């Protein structure tokens, strides 16, 4: 069966965690590395942690290919045409418009605007027009192994992270084998947006009370949106055994465990995690990738993952 007869199936993975600092970036970068290098998969890593994108710090051989400015449409009210009827104010669910008729004041607060377009529909005087305002940058890189990195980077001061994540995801390539979405911490709308198009979510946790509590919140969220997921326990060996107990209780797939290592933490500190990778780390990630692939080929029946 050739790719011409069947459109290519791209495996879409998302990495999330709930709690910050559990190792999402480490796992994302390592999966990206091993999938490109050891399995020759054409892989794209999309850094959706747009508030604090870190993947690029760990991928030293990346070359910038393109940069796009991501914008949102912000309405502008023309005082010459405005009759101060306040209909736009009543249409705006986000309290982003202030109109004070006695002093003929009408203004939009861009930091509250969701660019829904309701005010334009509301205005009967043709006084509102929309203009693009930057919310961040989307940069695409290529590395030596033919892998792609796409990074959304929120403009400092912008509160529109979810909109930028949506825009960053538009830069997904169609002709790659695997896409990895690296999610921000938390469990709210930016994380839902990141994992929305994924076939499978990898949750990275740490075996601590904070790690477990936030893992439970994330599991609750993923079950609500009906996404299949599995868990990687990072920094295994610290903390306690309660994450393990939770996983077996809830029959959640444990994809792998990565032991805490002081020397690995030191390599991470300088961004140097992809050079001189020790054999144990390599074995762990390969085992995780094998599990993911087995799951995928099983789910897709006859369709094979590789071209």
């Amino acid at each position, binding site marked *: 069966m050739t790719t011409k007869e069947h459109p290519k199936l791209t495996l879409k993975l998302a990495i999330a965690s709930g*709690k*910050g*600092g*559990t190792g999402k*970036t480490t796992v994302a970068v390592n999966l990206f590395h091993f999938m490109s290098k050891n399995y020759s998969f054409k892989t794209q890593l999309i850094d959706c*942690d*747009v*508030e*604090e994108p*870190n993947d690029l*710090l*760990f991928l030293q051989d990346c070359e910038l290919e393109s940069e796009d400015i991501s914008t949102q449409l912000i309405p502008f009210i023309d005082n010459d045409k405005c009759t101060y009827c306040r209909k736009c104010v009543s*249409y705006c*669910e*986000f309290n982003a418009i202030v109109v004070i008729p006695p002093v003929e004041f009408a203004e939009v607060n861009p*930091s509250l605007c*969701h*660019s*829904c*377009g*309701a005010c334009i*529909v509301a205005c009967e005087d043709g006084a509102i027009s929309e203009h693009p305002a930057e919310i961040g940058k989307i940069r695409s890189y290529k590395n030596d192994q033919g892998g792609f990195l796409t990074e959304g980077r*929120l403009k*400092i*001061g*912008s*509160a*529109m*992270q*979810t909109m930028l994540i949506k825009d960053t995801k538009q830069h997904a390539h169609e002709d790659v084998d695997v896409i990895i979405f690296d999610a*921000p*911490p*938390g*469990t*709210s*709308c*930016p*994380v*839902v947006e990141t994992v*929305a198009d994924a076939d499978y979510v990898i949750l990275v946790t740490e075996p*601590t*009370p*904070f790690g477990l*509590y*936030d893992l439970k*919140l*994330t599991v*609750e*969220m993923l079950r*609500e*949106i009906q996404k299949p997921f599995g868990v990687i326990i990072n920094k295994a060996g*610290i*903390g*306690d055994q309660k994450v393990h107990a939770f996983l077996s209780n809830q029959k959640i797939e444990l994809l792998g465990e990565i032991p805490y290592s*002081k020397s690995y*933490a*030191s390599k*991470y*500190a*300088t961004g140097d995690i992809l050079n001189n990778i020790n054999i144990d780390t390599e074995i762990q990630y390969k085992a995780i990738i094998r599990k993911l692939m087995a799951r995928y080929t099983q789910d897709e029946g006859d369709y094979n993952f590789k071209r």
Partner: protein
Amino acid sequence: MKEITILSGKGGTGKTSITAAIGSIASSVVFCDNDVDAADLHLILEPAIREEHTYTGGWTASIDQSSCIDCGICTDHCRFDAIHPDRHGKLEINPFKCEGCRLCERLCPVQAISSVQSTNNNWYVSETRFGTLVHAKMGPGEENSGKLVSVVRKRARELAIKGNARYLINDGPPGIGCAAISSLTGTDLVIMVIESTISGLHDARRLYELIQSFSIPTYALLNKFNINPSSTTEIEKFLKDKSIPLIGKIPFDRHMVNAMVKGKTIIEYSDQIEASKVIIEAWRKLEHYLE
């Protein structure tokens, strides 16, 4: 009353453990957990809930398919790609994509669309062994976390003023987006907890740029400073360049995790270990600056 917000940019740098530790040291404090998305402070402070409130969040629209005439006006106007035909060809709204702008509801010629407000978020006022805690629990996948941060902060401030507290301490969220912005506005001082890594520094730089746009005095606390000396040197250079006072360097210590497992602050666990001593000294310095 002085309001202090603890932030980091990067997640998992130790904000919550440090906030809880300050609880062990400082007297007359009201706490507010601003990380409403993945709140953890209550795991150490073990609050007894005194007040429970529902926070009504954003709207979500839905279509009554029996009255829908399939005109497609809603689909054409929805900017969030939330309205699509279901498998029977009838229009439906994906609640996770719906932004809650209610434009579709206003435009529907047959009033087939209605919206409901989420009541899936709660917030609480609680008593703890270190003082009052205002905290929240968001429903999974909810939006508007920035607004919920404003709600809990407002209540915490009222309680701090009413109770004549000396300090209000906000345990902040990770990132620099809407929740972080909400936890910054109007605070008197920021403690930036920086993890001694390349990403810790990268994220602190972005956070500091945001804090500067609000002109809020900022102090830095370095965490896990001993995992790599060269990263620590880089960060100290950054702090010196920006004239950000460094009030302490906390070493990586497994006792930090052990304390968390036991539900204790690091100070309660042992005030004789290096990490505890550094935090005690850092707080002493801050109190001095705030006088």
